Each structure stands twice: as structure tokens, then as C-alpha cells.
């Protein structure tokens, strides 16, 4: 047993930490928040340069073929920012779907472009009846001579506004099951509309007679439910690691604040009530961390990781949200000033709560894995 990072992971952590401190300081992230276009201009090319867009992609397809834990170590640092954006959607989630399900030709066509950062993919799965399973999918794909015509609406699609390509989940008319299509985001009939409010990086994507070629059907038509499920198990812990980073950042921020801020002539960290908040936070942080990294280890060791993945996703989503709550308790007034930066995490913790399936969904899966219900 050895629960420490190996040398490669240590290097990844160091360079990611430097990058986040340097290019993604609080001021920089607040600036990006005000002017989202700055991200793809400034941050994204640097990420590609560092090789991060190719980490989860095998060498054959232009990446560096790192294991899930390596990738997660990077995402923990990004979560500490929180650095927003399409790296997870494109280079982890969609890359995985292509790797698992696409034809060799499609893999050769798209994975190297994802690995280099030239193309940015996002997954358009969820619809009005929200959920990360195939059940809610209604988007219609009508077969025509050269390919398909897509009609329907996707919503709460993460990173769509930064994507060059979408992997769209739809139903082929007259066929069984659901299918995956690669759609160029510039295809006529495709409209991406970012959603406003206390929400980070999600859009509505409308398909109004959008034509795709037959070759853009990814995987076996009709089998997408299993294809997505398999990919989700493989990538979910990486997103969990991002939330671990978020928990760590808000904990560190709060701990430091509790050491510096004085009220009633003493640092507030002396008050047991403030200590309680911080203890809750460190418990959330460590719960998220260890459930996540064990799930990653199982994945990397080729073990059945399902139960651990469901535990990790339930725990990390809940932990990040609640850690932010306690960070607000510790900070009181200053924490709700947008310029302070804590609210970037608060919003992210809510926005990612349901991403890849809410804790409730993962708990229901766990019921099955544990043999508590049939099916």
C-alpha cells in the first residue's frame, strides 16, 4: 500500500499548481468571468501547450496516454482555481466516448485534433426532462440518403459555447435505442445559447433541421445508452477530483481567513463555532479525496470500479457544495463580495452538482450494485 503520488503525478501537480497560481489567479478568473471570450484566447492555448489536452488520449491518437489518476491530479489543481472550461468535456469525456465507441477512422480523424486542442468537443446529452441517462432523450434523427437530419433541444449542456464540435445523443426514427452523432457546432440549424444566472458554463443547444453525414454516426447506432454509461464510469472520478480541488481551495481560503481576521480582539479561528465550520470542511475535503482516489486506483488497476465511482460522485458533489456553505459561514460578509472570489467556487459547486449524474442518481445505481434492488 502507498497512498502517495508517484513521481509523474508529483510533476503534474507541481506544474498545474504553478499554472493555476500564475495564469488563473483570482483576478484573472474574475476577469474571465466578466469576459468569457478571454478564456479561449488566453488560457486554452497554454493548456494545449502544456499537453493537458492530450493527457487522457493514447499516443496512437496523438496524446500521452496518461492513466486516470494522472489526469485526476491535474483536475484537482484546476478545481482549486476553479478554472472553468471545456478541458474536461473535450479532452476527457468526449475523448473517452470516441475512444470507446467510434470507428477507427473517426478516432484517427478527431482524437488527434482534440489532443492538440485545435478542436473542442462537448457532450449534448441532457434535455428538458433532465437526467444523465438515456431515458430523457427525445432529440430526433431522421435518416436521409446521405446521413441524418437532427431536430430537438438539448439544455444544460456543459461547455457548448466553447465547443467546435458536439457529440449529440438522439433517437434514429424507426430504430431502437439511442445513438451518438458528431456535429460541427457551425452546422446550419445548430444554435448555442448560454444560460444566464447563478450557473456556470451551461447552454441550450437547439437543432433545427441540422444535417449530419452518415460517417458522423459514432459507434453502433442504437447502442449509445451502454456506450455513454461505460464512458461515464471511466471519467466520473476525474470530475470528482476537480471537486476535491474545489473543496481544498475553499478550505485553505477559510483556514487562512480564520487565522487573520480578528473580531472581539482575537482571531476568529479561536471561536469554537468557527472551528466547527472548518472541521466540517476538512471532513468534506477528505471524504471527497479518498473516495475519489480509490475509485481512480481501481480504474487504473483494471478492477470493477462501479461501486467506488458511485460513492465518489455522491460524496464529492455533496462535499463541494457543503464546503462552500461553510466557507461562507467562516467569511460572512466579505465572502459574498464578488471581487473576493469565493463565489466562483460557490457557483461552480452548484453548477457541477448534477453533472454526470446527481448524487441521488449515483446512490440509486449503488442500490443496484449492492444488490438492494433488482435490475
Amino acid at each position, binding site marked *: 500500500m502507498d497512498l502517495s503520488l508517484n513521481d509523474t503525478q508529483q510533476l503534474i501537480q507541481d506544474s498545474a499548481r504553478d499554472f493555476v497560481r500564475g495564469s488563473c489567479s483570482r483576478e484573472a478568473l474574475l476577469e474571465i468571468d466578466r469576459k468569457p471570450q478571454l478564456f479561449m484566447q488566453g488560457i486554452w492555448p497554454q493548456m494545449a501547450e502544456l499537453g493537458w489536452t492530450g493527457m487522457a488520449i493514447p499516443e496512437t491518437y496523438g496524446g500521452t496516454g496518461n492513466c486516470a489518476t494522472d489526469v485526476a491530479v491535474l483536475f484537482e489543481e484546476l478545481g482549486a482555481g476553479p478554472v472553468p472550461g471545456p478541458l474536461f468535456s473535450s479532452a476527457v469525456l468526449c475523448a473517452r466516448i470516441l475512444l470507446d465507441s467510434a470507428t477507427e477512422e473517426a478516432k484517427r480523424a478527431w482524437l488527434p485534433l482534440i489532443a492538440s486542442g485545435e478542436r473542442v468537443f462537448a457532450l449534448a446529452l441532457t434535455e*428538458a*426532462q*433532465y437526467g444523465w441517462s438515456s431515458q430523457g432523450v427525445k432529440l430526433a434523427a431522421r435518416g436521409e440518403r446521405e446521413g441524418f437530419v437532427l431536430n430537438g433541444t438539448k*439544455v*444544460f449542456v456543459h461547455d457548448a459555447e466553447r465547443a467546435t464540435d458536439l457529440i449529440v445523443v438522439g433517437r434514429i426514427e424507426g430504430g431502437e435505442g439511442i445513438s451518438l452523432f458528431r456535429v460541427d457546432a457551425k452546422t446550419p440549424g445548430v444554435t448555442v445559447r448560454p*444560460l*444566464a*444566472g*447563478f*450557473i456556470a458554463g*451551461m447552454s*441550450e443547444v437547439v437543432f433545427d433541421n441540422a444535417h449530419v453525414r452518415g460517417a458522423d454516426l459514432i459507434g453502433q447506432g442504437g447502442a449509445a445508452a451502454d456506450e455513454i454509461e461505460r464512458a461515464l464510469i471511466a471519467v466520473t472520478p476525474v470530475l470528482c477530483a476537480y471537486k476535491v480541488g474545489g473543496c481544498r481551495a475553499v478550505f485553505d481560503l477559510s483556514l487562512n481567513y480564520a487565522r487573520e481576521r*480578528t*473580531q*472581539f*480582539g482575537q482571531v476568529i479561528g479561536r*471561536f469554537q*463555532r*468557527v472551528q466547527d465550520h472548518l472541521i466540517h470542511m476538512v471532513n468534506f475535503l477528505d471524504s471527497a479525496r479518498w473516495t475519489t482516489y480509490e475509485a481512480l486506483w481501481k480504474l487504473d488497476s483494471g478492477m470493477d470500479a462501479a461501486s467506488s465511482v458511485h460513492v465518489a460522485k455522491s460524496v464529492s458533489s455533496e462535499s463541494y*457544495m457543503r464546503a462552500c*456553505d461553510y466557507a*461562507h*459561514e467562516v467569511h*460572512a*460578509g466579505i465572502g*459574498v*463580495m*464578488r*471581487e473576493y472570489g469565493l*463565489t466562483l467556487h*460557490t*457557483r461552480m459547486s*452548484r*453548477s457541477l*452538482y*448534477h453533472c454526470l449524474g*446527481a*448524487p*441521488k442518481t449515483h446512490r440509486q445505481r449503488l442500490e443496484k450494485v449492492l444488490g438492494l434492488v433488482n435490475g
Partner: protein
Amino acid sequence: MNFGIEDSAEQGAFRDEVRAFLATAVPDNLEHAIDPVDMSYEQYQIRRALGRKLGAKGWLYPSMPVEYGGGDLSAEKVVILHDELSRVGLALPPYYDSGGKMAAPTILVWGTDEHKKRFLPPICRGEVRTWQLLSEPSAGSDLAGVKTTAVRDGDVYRVNGQKIFVGSSHGADYSWTIVVTDPKGERHKNLSWLMIPMNLPGITVQPMDLLATGGEAGSGSGVKNAVFFDDVRVPADHLVGGENNGWKVATTHLEVEHGGTGRLADRRVIYDFIEMCRDRRDGYAICDDAGARAEIVDLYIEAEITRLFALRNHWLAHTGQPRSYEGAQYSLRRKLSGLDMAEKMLRIAGPCVLTKDEKWGPLKGAIEYFQRDAITALHPGATTDIQKVVISRRLGIGGREKEKAGTLR
């Protein structure tokens, strides 16, 4: 016991009277900004005008004495008034005003006759609006540690310092401000309260950008500000409650702010949310899911408890009974249950609760606002920790003598 509020013909008639009044007094062009920060100046003026109409009847601050422009209404009638206003999406007052809510009950206790006659009627009639200025960058929970000074200079006090997280949008006529009048004095014996006219030279108001503004239903506070005083000369007779007696005055103010005078809870957004969960579209309703139903029921139960704490405080206040921990208890409950409810909504309804998008954001964005506001509302008035400190002292936890509630009328 009787929880009913309408058990006499007189009360029934009062409800009819209020309803008829509102039917003509509330103008058609009154709009309800979901986020109080979005309330325009025109809309603010419309609300002020409505406030003056309510004030003329003594209904703007219905619990204040008639001689100072209040209504001196019975507990039941006040509930009816709130009820009817909330039916049209309004609260008392229909705009942010710390003057009637907190300064007036405090002046009633600590002001001289002259202060009461001068300050209270314009407040109660809705002619002026007042902000409360307590917090400073280095003094939040530790209110007694404020640093803004007011130094006596002939017949004025010269005020210097900075307040934060105060007020709202579109200005105020007065600021009800706690200051240090004896910089060398002992803690708690060095403070005073000034009613500062906001048109005096040397006052600068600078808006703050917050996650939300933590307002009450129907009268959210709008943009919070930092206020700077640069040698502002305040007439000495604007000092209320006696020089260096400000801490005692503060305990009254805080008692009121924490809800010790009773508050009628209106969390309409919760009932609207439950309604939304019942709403069936394309053959699907949120409440079809057993897990969601269980959480909705929890939400409802939490709302009931909070409502009853508020009602109890209202009854205690209107019947002049002794109070101790109840104000802080209500405040704490409201804060913690608000956050918990917001998170339940996120769990139940999914990411739609995070957007105010016209098409996807439920209840015209009211739920999205609630998501932000529930976090922000943990802090105004006093943090949850401080509410717990107050409750503990009032209950005498730890064996020390019980602390008394701040003096109320």
C-alpha cells in the same frame, strides 16, 4: 389557544377594507423585480408613493403608536394587513427602509419626546427613508468595535469613518448610524447613535457588488453600499439615546433586527416552488418521483416551522410579553433553513434552479435568485454563530445568569 386571526366581524371587515384599499392604491404599472438590484428608480418612486398612501392610514408601520403616525393595530389586524399585501406580492414597507423597521422602535424606547415628535412621524408616514449603518470593515460581528468617530464641536458632531454592507439603491434621507463618541472610553461605554441627514456635505456612497442582497420578500434591499463620512457636521440634537449610551440603544436595535418584535414570514417562493413540482408538462411532473416527494415534504415542514416561529414572535410582541431567545432563534432558523431549502430545490429540480433564463429558469428567475440569496442571507443582522451566542446567553447555557433581551416597548 386560537391560531385564527379572523374570528370577529370586525376583523373580517378590516380585511375587506384593506383589500378595497389595495385595489385602488396599488397602481397597475407597479412591477416586481425578481432581483431587487434590478428595481428602477421609477419603480422605487412608485413604491414610495404607495408607502405614503399606506402611511396616511397608519398602515405603513401598523404597530407603531397612532400619535407618531403608526396604526396601533391589533396583532390580528397586522397579520391581515401583511396577508393582503403579500397576496399582491408586496411587504411592509413595500421598499427597503430600516427607519420604520428598526430605527423607529428603537427611538420609541430611547428617544426624548422631542426626538420622537421630530423623527417618528415622517418615518411612519413614509415621507422619509432611512438606512441602518452599523457594520464597518473591521467591525462586523464585533459591533462594539466600530471605529467611525463623532467628535463634539460646538453644536455639531464631526463624523469621520466608513460603513459597509449598508443601505440599498436610490439613496436615503437619513442614516441611522452607530458611532464612537468617546474614543478613549471603555468598551460598550463609548458609543452613540446619530440620525444623520444624508444630504450633508462629506458623505459618499459607493455601491458594492454582492452575490445577492439578502432582502425580505417583497422589499429586497437592492444594491448594498460602502458609505464614507469625511468630516460630516451633524447637528448635535440628532444624537439619540444619550451620549455614550449607544450600546444599550444597540441592544434594542439588534433585538428588533433579529426578529424580537415579531416578524411575519413570507417565503412565497417556497409555496410557488411546490406548486411548480406539481405542474405536469408533457406527461411529466417533478413530484412523480418518490425521492423528490420526500424532499418536497421536508421543505414544506421546514417552512411551517419557520412560519410558526415568526408568528409566535409576532404574538409575543403584540401582547407585550417577556421575550428572551426567541428573536435569535427565529433568525437562526430562517438563515439555516433558507440555505437548506435552496439546496433541496437544487436536488429536486436540477440545474434549472440556477438559471434565470426566460425559457428554462423556473418562476421567472425567482428560484435562481433564491439560490444566491439563501447564501447571502446567512450574514445580515448577525451570523448564525452570533445568533447561537445570543441564544446560549439568553437560555443561560453554561450556568451563568440568563441575559435579558434588549429593551423593547
